[in-house]
């Protein structure tokens, strides 16, 4: 963990010679709609995320962000193009449980308590098992996301924000090298959303994981990320990249600064520009 943090301090994403945590090259994805019709979803996506960085993906809804994340997680294969996570194919990362997936809907198992939900990823695919007892590890991770004392609660007994914390813990307990977050806070109210964003920043800093965050909220992207990638409408390509050079740590009041507003404006302008240039 310490090694990654050092790497974060010295690595520059543009000139890093080290193997990036995520590298996708001309990813294409089309869905077969039958009768020879194909729906193109990704149209040559290139992206690189240096180890230890937090990169946000924003784009119009339905542009293929979730598909991109599924491909990076190794859940589906692209029609064309390559993906490498730490220089390995996503399948290898998947088998090593090196990817922590967090989704918009918490996707917890309602018949399991919080601690049993967190343990889920440790129970399956035991070849890559950990030395420590799953329960102990799950308890510690719940405490890490601020849910000590809620181990025995079922999802229906927890608030939306707490459920999403459990989902975060379920991913973090794997000690993933890469966190893939697919609009993790989209179903939460504004206040809870802001809180969990701060929580994510803290967890990301303590674990040293690389993180790729898909979000609808430009402010959230600017608040959390080192770089924001703006995607075009479907079929998606990376239209532009905005580097967010706000200093870290970033407390909530960063939102009030002129720099923050400037970055938000820039990302929004890029988003609008791409939407406008798209033929109807």
């Amino acid at each position, binding site marked *: 963990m310490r090694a990654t943090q050092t790497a974060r301090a010295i690595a520059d994403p543009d000139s890093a010679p080290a193997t990036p945590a995520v590298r996708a090259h001309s990813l294409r994805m089309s869905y077969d709609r039958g009768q020879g019709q194909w729906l193109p979803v990704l149209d040559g996506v290139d992206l690189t995320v240096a180890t230890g960085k937090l990169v946000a993906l924003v784009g119009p809804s339905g542009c293929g962000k979730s598909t991109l994340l*599924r491909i990076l*997680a190794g859940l589906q294969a692209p029609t064309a193009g390559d993906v490498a996570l730490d220089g390995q194919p996503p399948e290898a990362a998947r088998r090593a449980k090196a990817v922590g997936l967090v989704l918009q*809907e918490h996707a917890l198992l309602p018949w399991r308590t919080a601690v049993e939900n967190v343990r889920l990823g440790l129970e*399956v695919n035991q070849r890559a098992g950990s030395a420590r007892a799953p329960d102990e590890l799950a308890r510690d991770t719940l405490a890490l996301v601020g849910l000590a004392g809620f181990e025995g609660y079922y999802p229906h007994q927890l608030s939306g924000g707490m459920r999403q914390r459990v989902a975060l813990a379920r991913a973090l307990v*794997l000690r993933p090298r890469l966190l*893939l977050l697919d609009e993790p806070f989209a179903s939460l109210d504004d206040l809870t959303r802001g809180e969990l964003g701060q929580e994510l920043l803290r967890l990301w800093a303590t674990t040293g994981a690389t993180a790729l965050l898909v979000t609808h909220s430009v402010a959230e992207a600017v608040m959390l990320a080192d770089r924001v990638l703006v995607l075009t409408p479907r079929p998606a390509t990376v239209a532009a990249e905005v580097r967010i050079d706000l200093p870290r740590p970033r407390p909530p009041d960063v939102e009030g600064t002129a720099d923050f507003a400037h970055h938000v404006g820039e990302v929004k302008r890029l988003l609008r520009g791409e939407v406008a240039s798209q033929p109807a």
Partner: protein
Amino acid sequence: MLKRLSPILLPLALVLVAETWVRLAGVPVYLVPPPSAVAGRLLSDPVFFAGHAARTLLGALLGLGLGVGVALPLGAAMAHSPGLERTLLPLAILTKVTPVVALAPLFVIWFGFGWAPTVLIVALFTFFPVLVGAIAGLRSVDAGALAFLGSVAASPAEVFWKLRAPSALPHLFAALRVALPLALIGAVVAEWLGSDRGLGHVVGAAHTRLDLPTLAAAVVVLATLGAFLTALLARAERRALFWQP
């Protein structure tokens, strides 16, 4: 107090009305037995009714067990493979659209008097709803949970036991709520046509003798049995699905 009693007020009133009407109008007992005569028949020979009820209950439960035992693995296979579903579903639907009652005499010829026709008829009655419930249930999994399990390379067996099977429980209980009354109907029909034991046989035999108090008493026992089993199932469902909102 009134709240707890209110569900039985109407049946009680109906019993009173029936009793009064039969007595005042002098309706013969071979047409409508007065409730008092039915109760008298029940109490005069409780061992007789209990014995036949046990037989019916066991036949219904064994048949239901067989139906569920065949439907669950088949449903799992069909939920897994759309090709298998396309191949087998027409045959399964045939068991649903055929009035299985019509097969009962045939089963008696093939398997003789006794347990076999009862168990088989009940299994045929209950097989289809459980099969459909299993297929629908095993497919109704949360896409996010499935994605998470995929992201940690869970095996198909792990996905089945940790996600699909528990997700299927609400559908399965709904199917059992349908199948349970069907099991009793199947048992009664099979016993009527092909057994010398069980409440179905009691009803059939009493009918030929125009012994309406015995017939009505058997029906009362059957209704009680059905209500008891349904309540038991509802209790099990509440326990198993405590996590449902």
